[in-house]
């Protein structure tokens, strides 16, 4: 998924649907989206508020909920910067240089998207679990990775690995290298060129990748579920905590915590739409500029 800039259609007088056909199609589309997207969303808030606001807000004072939120924030805070540095490095190498094997490298970067979240978690159990490759060594040195925070962070990094890179690669490829070459010829150093020229050019794409990566890092369930061990108050992330509350029939609690993540998803979509609007504006300015000159 890359930033989309879609032109909307001007309707032609010659061909086009009749008004009834048009409104039938719109109605079916709206009904389909209501059924699959809006109804579940409404259900989250309806279930969370079933016993009123007092019960809703008291769900957040629970000790285990707070520690789940803390763990999720820690995980996202480690994951996003690491994948950000990787994404920028990968995009710089792939977009600014021509070398052999580039196509294979891009495919390999995309691999984690093709792998089931459960398998993503399993991979780390096979490496660091009790019966895994490094299991006995880790036990000997008293290091815990699986059923502990390092495992959760590793699985999250794996699952969100491609987000920022795949956002930046096409963007930087489309921008070419002329501006950087000019800066270098004029005597700027490599890092200075990067921070003054490249970074401002890619800032919207970067932010776009970061918010998508962050949303997935916070919401990841399958992979984290495999490596976490579900220890209450210790290795439960927010999505895992929702599962536990739900399985204990504490529906109000489960949906109250879920409503937090739902609001976060709204925020993600809002920022995403804002970036799309902003980059469409930039494109418009660029084309206006070139028309004038």
């Amino acid at each position, binding site marked *: *998924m890359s930033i*989309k800039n879609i032109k*909307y259609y001007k309707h032609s007088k*010659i*061909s086009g*649907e*009749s008004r009834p056909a*048009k409104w039938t199609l*719109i109605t079916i*589309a709206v009904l*389909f*989206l209501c059924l699959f*997207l809006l*109804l*579940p969303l409404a259900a*989250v808030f309806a*279930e969370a508020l079933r016993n009123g606001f007092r019960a809703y807000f008291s769900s957040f004072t629970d000790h285990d909920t707070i520690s789940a939120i803390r763990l999720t924030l820690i995980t996202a805070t480690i994951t996003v910067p690491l994948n950000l540095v*990787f994404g920028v*490095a990968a995009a*710089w*190498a792939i977009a600014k*240089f*021509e*070398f*052999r094997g580039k196509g294979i490298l891009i*495919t*390999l*970067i995309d*691999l984690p998207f*093709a*792998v089931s*979240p*459960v*398998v993503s978690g*399993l*991979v780390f*159990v*096979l490496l660091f679990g009790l*019966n895994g490759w490094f299991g006995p060594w880790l036990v000997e040195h008293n290091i815990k990775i699986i059923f502990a925070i390092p495992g959760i962070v590793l699985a999250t*990094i*794996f699952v969100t*690995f491609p987000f920022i890179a795949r956002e930046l690669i096409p963007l930087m490829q489309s921008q070419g290298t002329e501006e950087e*070459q000019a800066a*270098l*010829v004029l005597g700027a150093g490599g890092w200075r060129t*990067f921070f003054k020229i490249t970074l401002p050019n890619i800032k919207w794409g970067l932010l776009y990748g970061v918010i*998508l990566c962050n*949303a997935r890092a916070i*919401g990841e*369930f*399958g992979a984290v*579920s495999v490596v976490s061990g579900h220890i209450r108050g210790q290795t439960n992330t927010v*999505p*895992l905590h*929702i599962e536990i509350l*739900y399985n204990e029939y504490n529906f109000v609690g489960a949906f109250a915590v*879920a409503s937090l993540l*739902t609001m976060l*998803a709204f925020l993600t*979509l809002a920022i995403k739409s804002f970036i799309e609007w902003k980059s469409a504006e930039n494109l418009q300015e660029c084309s206006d500029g070139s028309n004038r000159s």
Partner: protein
Amino acid sequence: MSLKFKQQSILPGFGLSLGYTIFYLSLIVLIPLASVFAYAGRLNWEQFWTTVTSPRVLASYRLSFGASFIAAAVNAVFGLLVAWVLVRYQFRGRKFLDAIIDLPFALPTAVAGIALTAVYAPTGWLGGFLEPLGIKTAFAPAGVVIALTFTGLPFVVRTVQPVLADLSKENEDAAASLGATRIQVFKRIIFPEIFPSVLTGSALAFARAVGEYGSVVFISGNMPMKTEITPLLIITKLEQFDYAGATAIAVVMLVISFAMLLIINLLQRWVARNQF
């Protein structure tokens, strides 16, 4: 063809950025994935084969692939329709609908799972209405299809949308002025142009659905042989400390994922060739 690995450039940082990329990629993705195949290498062929073809595992493939296929087909039809409506018509609320299409990407799968269950359970808003009609959705295979349709929804819409928007209008106008009906124009002129992108979007949705876990486990009910998806079986085996069994099933899933990746790459090349 030059034999040199890299072409000349005055830009600095190639060694550092490529080196770091390959180092991080190997550390996080390649070595961990290779460990699955290495671990599977410890099993002998017979062990592997009996695990991945046991009746319970076979039933889970049928459900996972069957439900993913139906969900991808539903998304192909409705995704195309939604993309069409969003690109071609102006109506109030269009921008909102366009923004909310990506919700399944942004909403954590566990939240989607419990929300869909709340809607479709026998006590839920829609389940309570469908149950008396004899239609079981939650805790039945239909529930799996519903969850997978939700997770796959953005793929077809987002792959078809740009292709539909770039479609040139002249051919449609020409056909219409020569007397073709609207249906004929769609079938003969529009559909052939957008078909590769519909197929790509469905393939992406299918690939995602096969491995999906979080949104399915709540609504499916997880009854062995009936509503148990393949990723859940891996977790069940792990919980019983049957690492070998879990690995064997994971290898099957990985091989299928890589095959899907290849197919999708070929499809995307086809789409790129059709666009000019």
